[in-house]
C-alpha cells in the first residue's frame, strides 16, 4: 500500500538535517520504499510503499520513527520528537452509556466537546490533508483525518446531539439489517459485522470502517463526541471486503492498529479540536480497555543471527539497532565454557506498535539485518551437497524438439491456457467437460483448454497476411478428474501449417527420426473429429498411439475463416519422450556388396503403399531396404536392396525372395507384377 508523507509534516515529528533525497535513498535501502518525491506548494511529498505487515508505518509519525532508526546508520543525526500534548480535561463523566463486547472490541476511548464551531479548516490543515491525498470536508471531520494520518490510529467523530438515546451498544449485525453510510450509500449487512446499536436496534455506526449518515457531524453540529475503538481486525477485514467499503480507516484497522496508540490519538484530536473548532472539553476521556495487550519477549540466538547474515555482528551494534526501533533488549552471552543456553543470547521485547509483526527470531533478524544494511552483507554461493534426485522430466528433450522444429521452419507460439467458449467448443471435447474459472477477466479467457488446436487456428487467422504459416507450441491441456483430484495436466505438442498433409508429415517424420523413435503411420486409426478422416493418420510407436496428424475438416476451416488446406499434428509429449533413444545401436558396416533391382506392381486404387513397403521389407532378412522409386497411375516401382551380411549374393539367392514378395503382394494387396520374374 502506498502512502504520501509531506516532508514538512514529517519534520514536526523528526528532528534531522537530512535532505529529502537522502531520506528517500536511505529509507528505501533499509526500510519502506520511497518510490517518488513530488513537489507540492514548496514541500516535498514522499510517495512511500508500506508493506501490509507494517501498519505502524502508515502514518507520518510511523515514518518518522522508522527514519530515526535508519538515518543514524548513515551518519546522519535524527531523533524522534516527543509528542507534546496539552493536558485538557474536564471533571465531568461522559454521559453516554457504553456497552462493550470485549470479544469484538479491545478498547474504546471517548470524549465530549461542546461549543464547537463547524466550518472550513484553516489552510495549514486542509493543505496537509490535500498533500496526503485526503479531501478536506468540515473542520471537525478534517481533524479526525489529520490525526489518523499523523498518528496512525483511525478516529471517529459523532454529532453528540444526534445520539438521541445516549447509548452505544457494541454488537454483531444480524443478516439483513441495513445502514446508510455517511456517503449516502445504503448497505444490507450479511450478519456478523460489528456495528453500534443505540439501544433501540437502530445502527448508528459501522465502527472502524465508516460512520453512518444518522450520527455524522453536519454544519449544524455544536457538540461532538470524539471516539476511538479497536474492533477485531478480521471482523473489519470481512465486513470491509464484503460490503466493498475500502476506507482508509478500514485499510488500517484490518491490519491490526496498535491499541496503545489510541490515547495519543484522542488527546491529539482534543488539542486540535479546541484549537481549530474553538471547542471546549466537556467530559473526562472515557477509556474502556478490558485487557491490555501483553508484549511477548523473543529469544534470539547469536548463532542464528550469524548464519542468516553470513557475518559476526557485534552485540553493541545489534543492541543499538533494536533499541532505536523501540525494542527492549537484554543480552546474555550464552556460550560461556562451552555451555549452550537454550534461552538464547538476546531477549528482545518489541514495542507495542510492533507486537504483531515481531513475534519470532527471524523477525528480529530481519530488523537487525535491514537496518545494518543488506548491502553490507557478504555475497557468496552456498557450499554443501548438491541434491541430485530429479523428477525425471526430460526438459532438455522438450528443448530439443523445439530446436528441430525451428530449424525446419516452424515458429513457436505461446497461446493462452484459458480460452473462450467458442474455442472450447471447437476442441473436440464437449463444453461441459472443460474446467472453467469462476471469476474470469474476460469472455475470451474462461475455459481451461483441452486442446491447443483451436488456439492455433486463431493464430493462423490473425496472421493471415502472411503466406505460408508454420507454427508449433508445447503446452499443457487440462483434463478434469472427479472429486478430490486436480485435473490431469498433459503436455501436448501441436504443429499447425498451411498446406496438405504430406508437407507436415515430412516434418513429423524427420522429428521422429531425429528422436530415434520407431514409428508407424496408421491410416485407419486416424479418424479424428477435427480433421478430414480420409486425410488423417495416427502415429503409433511401441504399439501405442502417440500422436496424429491430418488436414483440418471443412467446418473447422469455415469456423475460423481459413483457406485450406491447413494441416495439424498433435503429440502426447510424455508418451513421445518416453520412447526417445539418446543413441542408436550400432550396426556393423556391410562387408559385402548388395544386389539392387527394381520391381513394378499394379495396385488397386486407394492402396496404402506405406504398408506395402513395410510388408515387403519384413518378408525376408535379405531385404535391406525398399524405396518407392516412382508411381505412375496405378503402377508403382520399388527399388529393392538385398544384402547378405556374410557373403555376396547371387541371383539364385534372391530368386525365392522375389517370388515370395510377388506372391504376398498378390495375395494381400491384390497387386499384379508388371513384367515377369
Amino acid at each position, binding site marked *: 500500500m502506498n502512502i504520501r508523507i509531506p516532508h514538512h509534516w514529517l519534520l514536526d515529528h523528526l528532528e534531522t538535517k537530512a535532505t529529502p533525497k537522502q531520506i528517500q535513498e536511505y529509507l528505501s535501502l533499509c526500510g519502506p520504499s520511497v518510490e517518488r518525491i513530488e513537489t507540492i506548494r514548496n514541500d516535498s511529498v514522499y510517495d512511500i510503499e508500506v508493506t*501490509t505487515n507494517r501498519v505502524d508505518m502508515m502514518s507520518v509519525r510511523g515514518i518518522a520513527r522508522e527514519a530515526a532508526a535508519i538515518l543514524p546508520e548513515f551518519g546522519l543525526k535524527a531523533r524522534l520528537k516527543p509528542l507534546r500534548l496539552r493536558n485538557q480535561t474536564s471533571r465531568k463523566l461522559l454521559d453516554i452509556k457504553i456497552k462493550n463486547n470485549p470479544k469484538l472490541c479491545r478498547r474504546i476511548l471517548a470524549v465530549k466537546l461542546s461549543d464547537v464551531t463547524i466550518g472550513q479548516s484553516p489552510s495549514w490543515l486542509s493543505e496537509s490533508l490535500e498533500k496526503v491525498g485526503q479531501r478536506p470536508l468540515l473542520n471537525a471531520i478534517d481533524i479526525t483525518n489529520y490525526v489518523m494520518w499523523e498518528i496512525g490510529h483511525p478516529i471517529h467523530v459523532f454529532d453528540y446531539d444526534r445520539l438521541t438515546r445516549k447509548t452505544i451498544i457494541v454488537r454483531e449485525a444480524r443478516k439483513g439489517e441495513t445502514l446508510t453510510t455517511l456517503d449516502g450509500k445504503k448497505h444490507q449487512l450479511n450478519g456478523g459485522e460489528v456495528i453500534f446499536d443505540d439501544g433501540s436496534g437502530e445502527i448508528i455506526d459501522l465502527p472502524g470502517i465508516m460512520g453512518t449518515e444518522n450520527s455524522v457531524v453536519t454544519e449544524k453540529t455544536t457538540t461532538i463526541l470524539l471516539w476511538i475503538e479497536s474492533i477485531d481486525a478480521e471482523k473489519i477485514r470481512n465486513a470491509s471486503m464484503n460490503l466493498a467499503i475500502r476506507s482508509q480507516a478500514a485499510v488500517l484497522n484490518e491490519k491490526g492498529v496498535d491499541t496503545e496508540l489510541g490515547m495519543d490519538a484522542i488527546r491529539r484530536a482534543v488539542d486540535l479540536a479546541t484549537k481549530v473548532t474553538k471547542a471546549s472539553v466537556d467530559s473526562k476521556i472515557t477509556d474502556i480497555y478490558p485487557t491490555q495487550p501483553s508484549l511477548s519477549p523473543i529469544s534470539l540466538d547469536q548463532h542464528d543471527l550469524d548464519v*542468516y547474515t553470513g557475518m559476526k555482528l557485534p552485540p553493541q551494534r545489534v543492541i543499538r539497532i533494536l533499541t532505536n526501533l523501540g525494542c527492549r533488549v537484554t543480552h546474555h552471552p550464552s556460550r560461556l565454557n562451552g555451555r549452550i543456553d537454550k534461552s538464547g543470547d538476546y531477549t528482545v521485547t518489541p514495542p507495542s506498535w510492533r507486537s504483531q509483526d515481531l513475534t519470532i527470531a527471524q523477525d528480529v533478524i530481519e530488523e537487525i539485518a535491514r537496518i545494518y544494511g543488506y*548491502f553490507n552483507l557478504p*555475497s557468496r554461493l552456498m557450499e554443501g551437497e548438491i541434491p541430485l534426485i530429479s523428477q525425471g*522430466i526430460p526438459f532438455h528433450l522438450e528443448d530439443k524438439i523445439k530446436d528441430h522444429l525451428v530449424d525446419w521452419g516452424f515458429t*513457436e507460439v505461446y497461446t493462452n491456457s*484459458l480460452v473462450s467458449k467458442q474455442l472450447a467448443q471447437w476442441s473436440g471435447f464437449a463444453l461441459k467437460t472443460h474446467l*472453467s474459472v469462476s471469476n474470469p477477466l474476460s469472455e475470451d479467457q474462461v475455459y481451461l483448454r483441452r486442446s491447443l488446436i483451436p488456439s492455433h487456428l486463431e493464430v493462423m487467422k490473425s*496472421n493471415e497476411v502472411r503466406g505460408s504459416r508454420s507454427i508449433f507450441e508445447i503446452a499443457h491441456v487440462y483434463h478434469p478428474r472427479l472429486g478430490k483430484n486436480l485435473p490431469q495436466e498433459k503436455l501436448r505438442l501441436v504443429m499447425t501449417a498451411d498446406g496438405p498433409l504430406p508437407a507436415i508429415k515430412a516434418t513429423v517424420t524427420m522429428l521422429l527420426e531425429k528422436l530415434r523413435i520407431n514409428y508407424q503411420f496408421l491410416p485407419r486409426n486416424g479418424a479424428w473429429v477435427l480433421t478430414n478422416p480420409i486425410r488423417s493418420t495416427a502415429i503409433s510407436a511401441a504399439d501405442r498411439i502417440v500422436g496424429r496428424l491430418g488436414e483440418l475438416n471443412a467446418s473447422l476451416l469455415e469456423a475460423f475463416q481459413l483457406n485450406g488446406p491447413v494441416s495439424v499434428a498433435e503429440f502426447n509429449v510424455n508418451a513421445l519422450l518416453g520412447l526417445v533413444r539418446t543413441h542408436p545401436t550400432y550396426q556393423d558396416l556391410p562387408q559385402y556388396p548388395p544386389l539392387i533391382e527394381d520391381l513394378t506392381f499394379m495396385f488397386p486404387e486407394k492402396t496404402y503403399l506405406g504398408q506395402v513397403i513395410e510388408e515387403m521389407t519384413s518378408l525376408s532378412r535379405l531385404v535391406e531396404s525398399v524405396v518407392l522409386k516412382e508411381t505412375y497411375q496405378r503402377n508403382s516401382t520399388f527399388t529393392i536392396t538385398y544384402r547378405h551380411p556374410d557373403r555376396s549374393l547371387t541371383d539364385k539367392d534372391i530368386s525365392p525372395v522375389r517370388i515370395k514378395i510377388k506372391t504376398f503382394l498378390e495375395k494381400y494387396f491384390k497387386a499384379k507384377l508388371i513384367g515377369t520374374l
Partner: protein
Amino acid sequence: MSQPFLRESLINTKNEALALIADSKSLKEVKRVRIAFLGRKGKLNSFSSSMKDLESENRKQAGKLLNATKKTLEEALEDRERQLSKQERGDWIDVTLPSKHPPLGHKHPISQAIEEITRIFERIGFTRVRYPEVEWDWYAFESLNMPKGHPARDEWETFFVDHAQHPRLGAMVLTPHTSNGQVREMHRLGKPPIRMLNIAKCFRRQQDVTHTSMFHQFEGLVIDKGIGIQHLKGTIDYFAHEFYGQGVKSRLRPFHFQFTEPSFEVDFSCGVCGGKGRLDNGTRCRFCKSGWHEVAGAGMVHPAVLKAGGVDPSQYSGFAFGMGIERAYTLKPGLHIDDIRLFYQNDLRFLDQF
C-alpha cells in the same frame, strides 16, 4: 635471307611466341602477344616481306611453313584466351544474390529465456522441476503462511476454478506464482538439501502493459544447514551477471511476504547506464529512471513454511526467490520491449525477430 635461315628463324619465333602465350597471365597480355606476332606489323608479317626475295619453289614451301606457324599460334592464343577467360569470367557468380534457403523458424523468446535461465542455474546445482498449474489453495497460499482471508492474499489476483473444494486443501485455483512448488518440493525430497528451480506458467487477473493474465515465473528454493542471506545474494549476483552481463549488480531492499522472513525486493543495476541513473552525457537514463530495475521478490524461507514442508526449522534454513520471466527478459540491454503483452499476441512479425 636464305631459305634454311628463314626456316630456322621462323621456328625460333614460333617457340618464342608459344612460350610467351603460355606465360601470359591475363587476356590483356594474350592480346599483346597476338599483336606482337600476328598483328599487321607483327613479327610473322615481317617474314612475308622477306619471302618475296625467295625463289618460287622455296617461297611456296616457306609460305606453307608460315601459314602453319600462324595457325599454330592462333590456336595456342585461342586456347590460352579460353583458359584465361574461363578463369576471369566464366566461373563468376553473383555472390551477393540473396540465397534461397528453407524457411527459418523462430523459437519464442520466452522459451529462449527459460532455456538460458535453466542452463545458468543448473551450473550451480539447481534441479529444474514442474508442478501443477491448476493447484490447491493450500499449496498456493495456506502452506505459505497465508491463512484463508489473510489480507496479504490481495496481492495475488487469483483465478478460482469452478470445482468442488478439497476438504483439506481448499479451493482449486490457477497458481498465481511458482511458490506453490516450495512445499511440494520439500515433500518430494523428504529432507534437505534442496536446490530447486521451478519454472511455470502462472495466472493472475490483470492485464496491462506490464501484466498479462498468463505469464511465466521462475523460482529458486535452497534449503540446507547454514543457509543465509549471503547465499541468496551470491546466487542472485551470479544470475545477474550470467543473464545480463558482467558488471550488472543486484541489491536487496526490505519488503514483506508472508512466506519469507526476512523478505526482500531484488533490484538489478541498469545495464544501459550502469546503475548511475544518468548516461555518460549527463542526461537521465530513460531505460531505468533511477539506475535500478525492480525485478524479483525473495527472502529467507519462513519457519512456518519449512514446517508445512516437513522440514525442521531449528536444523535448516533456506532462501527462495521468484521472478517474472517476461520482466527479467525485457531488461536485456538493447531489447527495447516495453509492452509485455506482445509476447502473447503471437504476431509472426514479432516472433520472426527472435
